């Protein structure tokens, strides 16, 4: 309902201690960005298994931005485990001919307004260019 089907939707996984308040900071500054963006508050993105990302694309999400705390992650070892997991997701995406740029990993701090806006606008431009994701196995079926 928020966007028409061709516009595509961007899912943002934002960490509760860094990127989620960062997104709020963008709101406090009243800086506009595309409305086809849906932010889910997460404790640490390491919670999501590889299939979660692939399922999102299959369900019709056009782009995913993981906005983490980066090296500032409050959970010991979580960021490195997560980075490794994202590598696995890229492999799965490659196998399905899904453009790897549809999944973006970035670190956003609580006052990173400009980087937040750049990431969102870049992803929006990308999904407009690429259109909805098409899985290789679905295309061949």
């Amino acid at each position: 309902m928020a966007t028409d089907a061709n516009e595509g939707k961007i899912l943002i996984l934002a960490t509760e201690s860094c990127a989620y308040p960062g997104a709020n900071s963008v709101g406090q500054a009243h800086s506009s960005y595309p409305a086809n963006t849906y932010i889910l508050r997460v404790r640490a993105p390491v919670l999501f298994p590889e299939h979660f990302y692939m399922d999102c694309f299959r369900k019709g999400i056009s782009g995913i931005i993981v906005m983490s705390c980066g090296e500032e992650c409050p959970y010991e070892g979580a960021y490195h485990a997560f980075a490794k997991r994202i590598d696995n997701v890229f492999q799965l995406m490659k196998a399905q001919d899904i453009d790897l740029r549809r999944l973006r990993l970035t670190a956003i701090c609580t006052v990173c307004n400009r980087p937040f806006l750049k990431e969102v606008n870049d992803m929006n431009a990308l999904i407009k260019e690429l259109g909805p994701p098409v899985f290789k196995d679905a295309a061949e079926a």
Partner: protein
Amino acid sequence: MSDEIKKQETAEPRVGVYICHCGGNISDHVDVKKVAEAVKDIPGVEVSHTDMFMCSDPGQELIQKDIKEGSINRVVVASCAPSLHELTFRGAISRADMNPYLYEHANIREQDSWVHHGDPATSKAVTLVAAAIAKARGLKPLEAIRVDAANHATIIGGGIAGLRAAVDLAASGIEVALIEKTPFLGGNASKLDRVFPTSEKAGDLIAYLADTVMKSPLITIYPCSEITGFEGYIGNFTLTVSKKPPADAVPGDIREKYFHPFAGYYPGQTPTEASEESLTTGVIIFATGFELYEPSRGEFGYGDNEEVITLRQLIRDMADSPQDSGTLRINNRTVRRVAMIHCVGSRQIPGIHEADEDDYLNEYCSRTCCTATLQAALEIRDRYPDTQVLDFYRDIRTYGHNQEDYYDRASEKNVLFFRYEPDESPVITRESGEYPLTVRVRDKLTFNEEIEVGVDLVVLATGMQAAPITSLVEMMKLPVGSDKFLQEVHPKLRPVEMANGGIFLAGTSQAPMDINEVCNAAQAAAAKTVALLGKGYVELDPFVAAVETDKCKGSGKCIEECPEKAITMNGNLAEVNPALCTGCGMCVAVCPENAIDVQGWSLQEYEDMVDAIVKF
């Protein structure tokens, strides 16, 4: 009724949806009635209301009424950021005898109405509320984790804020560690003489508090100390305090245990060798203060002319100036005419003022300098009537109680005011005429007349800037505002709390303030500490991993993954120790059976939210 409500918590989900106008903050851009209408037929939704302010008593009572009538057993509120009111609504639910964790928050202000407008904003609100409903349907009742809290608070900073908070905490029976990096108590206030609006000696205020601190058996002072280690959580922090001898030995003449003007209150105990100590504490109060802006070389002639000084230097020098002379003397020079310039290092404007190497400017108003400047101007006029005072300002902000009087009295005492625009700031040059320096400015008060006047002294009213506490900020992961000061959760509703549980703010670590405001904040932080630790325990959110025993096949992968060693094998089943689990979720992704999840943040709930986002 209460038992009936508890019974209903595990029944088929019936969601109550409450959408806030937030005055007009949300409803000016989001058609909230339309949102309420759009979500009312989503399966599981029982009621869908709107209210002008959901956080108000009538708003909260709306939720409580539906719970008590048995209409709903899940709550979704769509309003501002959850950091502001998630706890408010959980509290409201709890007071209606329902489990507070059967609640989900949709952020339709910071992440919608403040960044989108018109139909897209309304459509996005529908989607965000639908996603929250999807999550709420899957929520399970949870119990908070109760842990003992130390009856102990650590105050970082022994300035007037730290002293005020320490005295109040000790009076309430809480043990205090007062950590001060210098050998003296009193902080920046020690560098002042008389303070507005009462004209009391700053030293008297410091001495009054420091004497009480020194006598209290509950307060331990750690001079020459800094926090170098931090771990734990609200109620149970462990801090490492590192003491080291000061770089410059404390001179013998200020080693008596009382207040020494412009140095501070000497508490003794200056360490002679480095040492470390571990502290267990329930609350941390940041009373780390501010540092004064240091003008760059050449800024209003500073550094190039010894007749250009800061207001702090003037206050120091005036204290040594002879009292009975008709003319002010500074550094053995007669000051027939002094120029005082406001807003130095404050209210800086990109493109006009020079940014530092990080492209940063102090764009905020430092607030206290106007009254401080006028107070000094009045003191000159009162004590040295033959010295003329010229005051160059952008705007006068004598904002506090009784402070406007300073402006009125300065006019009565013939202080001459000139108003300048930031892009036409006063220019100071050295001349060979009657006066060593000349001030040139275009004066707005005389319709842009160019003024050129000789002076003996230029005083720069420099502003406050955030203290350099980067290592503490990074160690404790504290939120910092774009002005580099520590940031509270909410300026009005939670003004001395940080988002990090158990860490409070006292004074100018948060923003420029005068001593009145500093003591207000310090007492507020102390009161919050007493309220928190007074119960003897704290309740932590139960967002830790839990195993679904009927799904677990004992693969042990979660145990390998857990960095906290919070999971062990009990027979053939994994078992989580909730006291050790941090709720990071590393175990969730690796379980081949999806048998482990973080309570309140389960993978299934996220999948349900994604389904709703795709669908609506």
